[in-house]
């Protein structure tokens, strides 16, 4: 295996990890502050991608499409929070799982109703397409590199928001003691809506960014949702830092596993069965990783509450 291939795969892993982080960050914030499991988070990711594809088709501008994805997902998130989610905060996890499962059905079929079952396409703008040569002679698509950059910028921005702003102080206070901050005069209902919309906006942005590499279609949010859950469970639910570490871990494992495992099994098995077993195990690898981490640390790497 050449060093260049390895470097490319590591970059691919980072790229998918960063996009997972955008989705998982909202999920973990929502759980950390409101104690809510939101299965419909993947639907907000899909809403972002569809909004971006629609606006890009209408205006031709990629930046406008990204803005639309953020706005549409945030609006959909705020709407859902006000109509449904706020009734669920006091309920147990089972009710939350079911109600948000119901929301997935509504979102998916609703989108299919409007746009049909065929995938839409969102093109990478000309100024971001084509490969770029990195130090060491590695050719890598500029767009994917940009995505890694956007992910890093969002991670830094979130860090700044949470540690240095008034909203961030309220979010952290909300994670620690919900009743106390509402007793201190913070409008907790409004804070919840803002956090939910913020999480939705991040997921929507991720949907649009990934939608330009893959296709934009109904059901695109669900695999990502499951991966994002794996990420936040590995990282410890409620921890943004955990979400970042977990996302990179999952992104890299998912990308490098199919590369390394067949080689590893090739050391002591014949090539054909090594390839089969390696590929099968690689597809399960992140779940094995998650189970192993949970058995070792039942509340995740950076989790505080079980």
């Amino acid at each position: 295996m050449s060093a260049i291939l390895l470097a490319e795969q590591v970059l691919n892993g980072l790229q998918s990890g960063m996009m997972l982080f955008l989705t998982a960050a909202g999920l973990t914030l929502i759980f950390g502050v409101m104690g809510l499991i939101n299965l419909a988070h993947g639907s907000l990711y899909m809403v972002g991608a569809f909004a971006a594809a629609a606006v890009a088709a209408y205006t031709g501008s990629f930046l406008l499409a990204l803005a639309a994805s953020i706005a549409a997902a945030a609006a959909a998130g705020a709407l859902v929070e006000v109509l449904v989610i706020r009734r669920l905060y006091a309920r147990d996890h089972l009710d939350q799982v079911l109600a948000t499962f119901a929301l997935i059905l509504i979102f998916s079929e609703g989108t299919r109703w409007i746009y049909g079952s065929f995938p839409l396409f969102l093109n990478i703008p000309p100024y971001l397409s084509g490969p770029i040569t990195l130090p060491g002679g590695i050719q890598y698509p500029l767009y994917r590199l940009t995505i890694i950059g956007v992910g890093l910028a969002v991670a830094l921005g979130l860090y700044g928001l949470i540690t240095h702003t008034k909203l961030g102080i309220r979010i952290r206070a909300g994670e620690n003691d919900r009743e106390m901050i509402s007793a201190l005069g913070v409008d907790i209902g409004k804070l919840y809506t803002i956090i939910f919309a913020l999480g939705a906006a991040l997921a929507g942005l991720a949907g649009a960014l990934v939608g330009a590499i893959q296709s934009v279609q109904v059901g695109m949010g669900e695999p990502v949702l499951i991966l994002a859950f794996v990420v936040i469970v590995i990282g410890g639910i409620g921890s943004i830092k955990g979400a970042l570490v977990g996302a990179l871990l999952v992104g890299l494992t998912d990308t490098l596993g199919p590369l390394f495992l067949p080689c590893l099994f090739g050391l002591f098995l014949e090539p054909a069965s090594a390839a089969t077993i390696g590929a099968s195990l690689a597809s399960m690898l992140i779940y094995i990783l998650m189970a192993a981490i949970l058995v070792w640390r039942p509340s995740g790497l950076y989790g505080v509450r079980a």
Partner: protein
Amino acid sequence: MKRETMINAALLLAMIAVPLWAYYAGKPFTITLATKVAILALAGVGLNIALGIGGLVSFGHAAFFGLGGYTMGILASHAQSYSPLFNWPFLFEGSQNMLMIWGVTILVSALAGLIIGLLALRTSGVYFIMLSLAFGQMLYYFAISWPAYGGEDGLSIYVRNGFPGLNTLDPIQFFAICFALLLLALFFTHRLMNSPFGLALNAARQSPLRAATVGVGVFRLRLVALIISAIITGLAGALYADLNRFISPTMLSWQTSGEIMVFVILGGVGRLMGPLAGAALFIILEQVLGPISEYWHIYLGAMLLLVVLFARGGIIGSLAKRDAAHE
């Protein structure tokens, strides 16, 4: 008589009357639908033991459902091709006999329940939900990437497996087998609910700490409940595969887990006949709304949302409300 008992009796009567009517009216498709209700209800009965009595929110019951399906598929496909599954340490041949298939399914599901339970029950709350989901996904992706039994495309079994003395290809006879198993599972659940084991499990759901304090081994109790639950759902999977004569990774997908959970909740979680009411409603909705709109899942979603938000206790819970007032 309590209202819930009357509703339960009405449900069972309907499950007998509808297929019988269909048999004399010559409508085999209706019998097949009733068979589907019985099988899905059986899967729900399994989940209800873990979820309703034990309070274990397993979001990975598709794992057991799919394992049952794959057990049937693997045994039957080896029997079709006359090739043994393995020769060592003993010769193990495929089979197209339902009794044999059920036996193997029980072993496989119990083993899966044991392994998953040993690992997942170490956690609780959201982490348990996610860990059960993770095990389901693990098997799902394994089934997709393992080419020996069809991989992503699934596997067709051309002839339905046989049952000694019955013709399983006759819809009404196959229905009778499925319904008999469902009745057996319901009777077992009823006994379980009122047994010391069931009561202790229920207590552990309401307050694990208090149950542990009075000397109940919560972990072991939950493990046994999960294994029983896995066995029943696994059997339902084997029957479902026989109904369709087809298995695919979809049986293992998390949407399947979600749907089994929906039957239990729509019908009424923790209620004996909840899964049957839920599965029947699901199939009726599919048949009534399906032809009206291709997008009938929207209505299903809306209904589920309304039940969760406003009608906790599901159909049976809402219908039997007056009981609670008397008690």
